[in-house]
């Protein structure tokens, strides 16, 4: 029963040294064969020994998640003993009430945290320059602190904090904490976009008599849209993926998806976990494609 999968699995792993060995030989043969006549500069860009390690690294990144994906389509009741192809577990997972409620909890938190963090970030980005240089640096440092604090420390600290102010663990605490650590992720692309715009548009608008509100509605906001989209996507995914902080702030009835997934994983490998893992992988691919497509479109607009 296990034979087909082990052969495919070992084929993938043995493919690594095989591919790695093939690369230097083609690189060596390149000056002679020149299949698509690479320009001279390109050959100068090749460094010996780099390609095998790089290809190994990329394969190393993908083999584990691909194995998880393959086993999500296992028909058997065990996570690892292959009993044939089936989408049965996708159906079973889709009917798991606890899972569905955790997805719903995660989505609610992520939507609230994304909207609040993005709006506050826009306000902050458009006003922080009005502070003196030192004040602006301090304000920015306060907002970006979650990026440099180890997550586990921030998690237990937040637990202590909500206990002290008398806020019970649950949805409100989760939404507030998520908003807080989403702000730096939402803020960064917005500020970068604002900085790249320069001053000319805004000076022109003033010269033509726009007031602050008109300027915001008609000039600033439309120009900021790419940064806002990037920031909102970042914030949304960061919130959806967060486990450590959520783990300390969740309560019964307010269990986000990663916390639920962790409790499943701790019970051991299972086909249901494989399916959820595959869905989260698909989410990552979708997010990558969206951000990528967006930046491509943007660079085309600039060109």
């Amino acid at each position, binding site marked *: 029963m296990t034979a087909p999968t082990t052969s495919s699995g*070992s084929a993938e792993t043995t493919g690594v040294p095989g591919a790695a060995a093939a690369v230097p030989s083609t690189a060596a043969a390149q000056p002679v064969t020149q299949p698509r006549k690479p320009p001279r*500069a*390109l050959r*100068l860009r090749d460094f010996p020994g780099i390609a095998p*390690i*790089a*290809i*190994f*690294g*990329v394969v*190393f*990144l*993908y083999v*584990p*998640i691909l*194995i*998880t994906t393959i086993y999500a389509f296992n028909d058997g009741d065990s*996570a*690892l003993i292959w009993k044939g192809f089936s989408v049965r577990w996708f159906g079973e997972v889709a009917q798991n009430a606890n899972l569905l409620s955790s997805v719903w909890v995660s989505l609610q938190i992520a939507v609230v945290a994304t909207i609040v963090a993005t709006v506050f970030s826009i306000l*902050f980005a*458009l*006003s922080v320059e009005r*502070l003196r*240089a030192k004040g602006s640096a301090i304000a920015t440092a306060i*907002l970006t602190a*979650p*990026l440099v604090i*180890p*997550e*586990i420390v921030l*998690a*237990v*600290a*937040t637990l*202590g*904090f909500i206990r002290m102010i008398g806020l019970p663990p649950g949805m409100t605490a989760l939404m507030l*904490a998520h908003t*807080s650590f989403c*702000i*730096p992720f939402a*803020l960064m*692309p917005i*500020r970068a976009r604002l*900085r790249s715009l320069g001053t000319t548009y805004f000076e022109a608008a003033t010269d033509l008599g726009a007031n602050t509100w008109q*300027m915001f509605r008609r000039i600033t906001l439309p120009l900021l849209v790419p940064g806002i989209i990037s920031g909102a996507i970042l914030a949304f995914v960061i919130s959806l*993926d967060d*486990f*450590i902080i959520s783990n300390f702030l969740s309560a019964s009835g307010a269990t986000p998806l*990663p916390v639920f997934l*962790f409790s499943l*994983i701790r019970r051991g490998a299972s086909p249901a*976990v494989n399916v959820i*893992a595959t869905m*989260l992988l698909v*989410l990552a691919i979708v*997010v*990558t*494609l969206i951000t*990528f497509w967006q930046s491509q479109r*943007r660079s085309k607009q600039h060109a």
Partner: protein
Amino acid sequence: MSLHLGTGTAPEAPTVRDDRTGVNLVPLATKRKKQPKVPGRFPWIAVIPALIVAALFTIGPLVIIVIFSFMSRPPTGGGIIYEFTLEPYVNFLFQSDFLGNTAFDPRYLSVFGDSLWQAAVTTIVCLILAFPIALWIATRPEKKQNLLVMLITVPFWTNLLVRTYAWMLILNDNGIVNTGAAAFGLPQMDLLYTPMASQLGLIYTFLPFMVLPIYASLAGFDFRLAEAAYDLGARKSTVIRRIILPLATPGIISGILLVFMPAFGSYVQPVLLGGGKVLLIGNLIASQFGDSRNWPFGAALSVITLVLLMVALIAIALYSRKSGKKVEISL
């Protein structure tokens, strides 16, 4: 992914290239002496909402954790009593027995040592793998570069639990490695729930965090420089050492920060892959707020961790000032 540090590219020229990674490498607080007054901005009051949220849920907890670390624990259960004591910090280094004798106790120091070791190994292995990957991607044709960066970005965006769980499947007693070994008649190996598994999981989960910043610092590289070096008789190894490595240094430094700091405080990998056998500072802190419920001691451990990381950050800041290479904390 709690930590995002980037290298400071010039703020006047934020390259569109960086955007492809989904990580912008534009410095946050640029030290401009005089901020140009741009019309149409909001009054300074508008910074308040974001600052209130941050003050409540970032600065507030940090202040509280420092306070907690100097407080007593209640006789039973979790939580704290507001009575000043240095006991949590004393407990970190010394152990008292029933007779009241205190003796030096290296247990917790060795947990810090183990965490430091696993984080250091993770950082070094990631660097050894990531530099060739980043250089290789940066030397591909433009179209291929985009695709490869996407390939690195997908694991970057994949949930940490999923990436860790994948190794549980592989290292399991019935996993790929063991079934493969059995096919060759090798005895079964205990791979999962070992320090090795935890280490492997750390390397795997943090590799993209090292590749992306190094790639970002190499992406705009003008290869005419390398060409000039070849014309002047440099060998490939010399070009890597004298031209490419210095160029990649800001990316390498931010990669080291991005990998080392979260690896040092890691929680998921030692718990899921190390089982009960790997005790790192991250799960030690977590357990103080869970099962054994000594909150003040957990708070003291958190403060010690924060201080250590702050020292590391300051050291890097000093290094970057000395070497004239700008490394700023940003996304």
